[in-house]
């Protein structure tokens, strides 16, 4: 019995001092956390270098540019309080074809105006003729003025049609010229992006957004939100609603998210809620596979360098196995406790906002320890078996790789766990002992209701599997460790279990 502790001590000390343990305990978790959280930081704290110019091509008479500028100023400002966005009305006054056409159009408008006034004049005159019955020759005057009116109206209608047609053509030209202009400004990076508003955009809600990277969701989301408000405002104003009321109606909303827990509600934060458990799974995986991996390589190494024969001459195979599991299991616990301590230090120094993270509790720490221990025993005894029957390191490492992949597989489903940690699929999967530790470590913090029942069930399943595997491992370990050269067949394996 004492040999178990001696072997455990040796395994513990020789691994504890190794560089790989240091790396797995301090560097890997740091790296992982960094890789996981860096994009968030980069995304959130993108440096706002300078004011962005947004071009506007306005084909309506809504003066949308000014509205947009006002709203943008209200929400988005740089650190130095200056506006983040500047609206630039894209002007085409320099364009020759446009100014030529504009001149023609103005002539038409002038003509239209003069005909209009002529028409009105005739109309007024006719009203007078009607009122004044004493005019000589009244019959004739009325008739001839009517004819005049008729002709003028026809002419007026024609001019109207022409001016409309011309206006459309002018708009179209304006639009093309403006777009050309804006595109060249985009290319030379004067503009960040530009917007095109059609004549009836308030009615049909159609706009265009031009940019070198329209996939920049942060930008488009902001513009969309603001334009939405502006347009709705305009639509409401068109329906003659008081301005004061309008402001009240369109007050922006903020949604704070809370999660319900047995002990009350807590504010909900996506990053803490999602990445916390993910880091938890990673740490659990690290712990299980650091010490489990040592167990594995220790068996492999002793088998290949024949130390196993020396050990077997001093201690029996049960002691050797027990000693290794004990020593390396303890090593894993030390690793976990080091992480706990680091977490406490980070909490104490306010780097981790513990009061906001509901799952940082003693109970959950205990669950972490339990699932680590069970996971370690489960994978560890599998590793011992594989290590002792593998004829060479290469084969063994491949199986090791495979098991790692299986164990980390739940992370791929993390989003599903995230949306519903207690769905039938996830529950069923977490009863599979290979996946239990990873799934449970995600589910426990994510589940709104306590999943005590599942915790008990999975623990029992794990314990039963562990007993089974250790039983098999013990039998195989003894016989297999002295074998060399070839991989045993299944019948041989069964035979070994019988003889030992």
């Amino acid at each position, binding site marked *: 019995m*004492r*040999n178990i502790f*001696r*072997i455990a001590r*040796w395994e513990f000390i*020789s691994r504890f001092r190794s560089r790989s343990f240091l790396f797995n305990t301090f560097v890997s978790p740091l790296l992982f956390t960094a890789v996981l959280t860096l994009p968030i930081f980069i995304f959130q704290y993108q440096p706002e270098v300078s004011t962005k110019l947004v071009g506007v091509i306005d084909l309506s008479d809504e003066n949308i540019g000014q509205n947009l500028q006002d709203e943008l100023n209200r929400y988005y400002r740089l650190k130095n309080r200056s506006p983040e966005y500047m609206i630039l009305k894209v002007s085409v006054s320099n364009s020759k074809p446009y100014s030529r056409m504009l001149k023609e159009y103005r002539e038409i408008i002038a003509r239209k105006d003069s005909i209009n006034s002529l028409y009105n004049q005739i109309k007024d005159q006719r009203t007078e003729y009607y009122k004044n019955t004493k005019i000589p020759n009244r019959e004739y005057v009325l008739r001839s003025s009517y004819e005049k009116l008729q002709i003028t109206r026809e002419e007026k209608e024609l001019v109207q049609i022409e001016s409309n047609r011309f206006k459309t053509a002018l708009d179209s030209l304006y639009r093309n010229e403006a777009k050309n202009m804006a595109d060249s400004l985009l290319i030379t990076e004067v503009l960040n992006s530009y917007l095109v508003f059609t004549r009836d955009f308030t009615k049909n809600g159609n706009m265009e957004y031009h940019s070198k990277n329209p996939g920049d969701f942060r930008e488009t989301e902001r513009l969309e939100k603001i334009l939405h408000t502006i347009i709705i405002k305009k639509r409401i104003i068109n329906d003659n609603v008081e301005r004061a009321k309008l402001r009240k109606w369109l007050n922006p909303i903020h949604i704070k998210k809370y999660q319900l827990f047995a002990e009350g509600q807590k504010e909900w934060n996506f990053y803490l809620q999602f990445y916390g458990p993910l880091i938890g799974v990673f740490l659990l995986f690290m712990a299980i596979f650091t010490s489990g991996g040592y167990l594995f390589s220790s068996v492999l*190494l*002793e088998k290949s*360098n*024949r*130390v*196993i*024969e*020396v*050990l*077997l*001459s*001093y*201690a*029996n195979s049960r002691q050797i196995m027990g000693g290794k599991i004990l020593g390396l299991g303890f090593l894993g616990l030390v690793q976990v406790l080091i992480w706990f301590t680091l977490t406490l230090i980070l909490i104490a120094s306010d780097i981790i906002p513990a009061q906001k993270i509901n799952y940082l509790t003693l109970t959950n720490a205990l669950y972490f320890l339990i699932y680590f221990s069970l996971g370690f025993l489960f994978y560890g005894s599998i590793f011992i078996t594989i290590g002792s029957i593998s004829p060479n390191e290469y084969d063994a490492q491949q199986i090791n790789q495979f098991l790692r992949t299986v164990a980390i597989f739940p992370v791929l489903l993390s989003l599903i766990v995230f949306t519903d940690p207690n769905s039938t699929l996830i529950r069923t999967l977490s009863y599979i002992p290979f996946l239990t530790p990873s799934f449970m470590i995600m589910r426990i913090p994510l589940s709104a209701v306590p999943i005590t029942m599942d915790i008990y069930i999975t623990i029992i399943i794990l314990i039963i599997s562990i007993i089974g595997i250790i039983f098999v491992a013990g039998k195989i370990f003894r016989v297999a460790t*002295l074998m060399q050269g070839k991989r045993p067949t299944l019948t*041989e394996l069964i*035979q070994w279990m019988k*003889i030992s």
Partner: protein
Amino acid sequence: METNILEVNQVTKWFFENQVINKLSFKVKGGETFGLLGPNGAGKTTMMRMIMNILQPDEGEILYNGIARNKIKSLHFGYLPEERGLYPRAYVLEMLIYFGTLNNLSRRKAEVEAIRYMDRLGMVDFSDTRINALSKGMQQKIQLIAAFLHNPDVLILDEPFAGLDPINQIALRDILSEYKKENKILIISTHQMEQAEKLCDHICLINQAKVILDGKLSQIKKKYRENAYSIEADNSIAFLHDIKGINIVEENNNSCKFTLSHDNISISKFFEQIKGRVKMRKFEIVEPSLHDIFIKLVQEQTAKS
């Protein structure tokens, strides 16, 4: 003091269909050095592993002072496996202390003993070296120290001389003969017959799973003495062929090994016959070497089966 006794009774061992040991029996007493000899694959290592309780015999029993081997604590036994079994990245002294404590030595005692033995084998300067920085022979010495660090009553050494230089071979023999004086049981296997001859009192030769020779070394030698003589001269001794009753066994330039057939000629007659015809440099009675016996017996037995 009562002498310890290790008995192997009718032990049989199979590896699947391959019978490696077939009803092997022998007995070793304290103060005796037992040589387990045999060609490659004869089953020596397997037998030793069974004595070390690393493997279990399929049939038969191994008794130490009348008690079944698997009921006895391993700390009475010391073992040198045939292949090095050391942690390559461990430090020499630390690892020796670990092995010592596995046999119930206190750390302190293990350290003292380890340093004592390292000093004796000229290894004391390497106590803080990693194993993989040692040469093969040095590693063999460390492995030996691990075997007798805890002063076991039964010492089992599988090819202990492999890789040792002549000086270290002598140092090892010295240590082993001390063990012998303390009335301990020593079982060695080796392919170096001269070493076996110098060291062993009792020889057991196995081949193809069976004992083909078992007995005290002196008796074995007597049994295989062949009435052989060797003669060396300064002139040609070809005329020996003409003398009746002489069988030439081996002939080289001016030297030859021969036997006399008792009926026809005695040694004094032989001397009369050669008188004046030879300038004798050397004449001796040839003792059969273990080497010769080994080769002869193994070849005979292999030919039979």
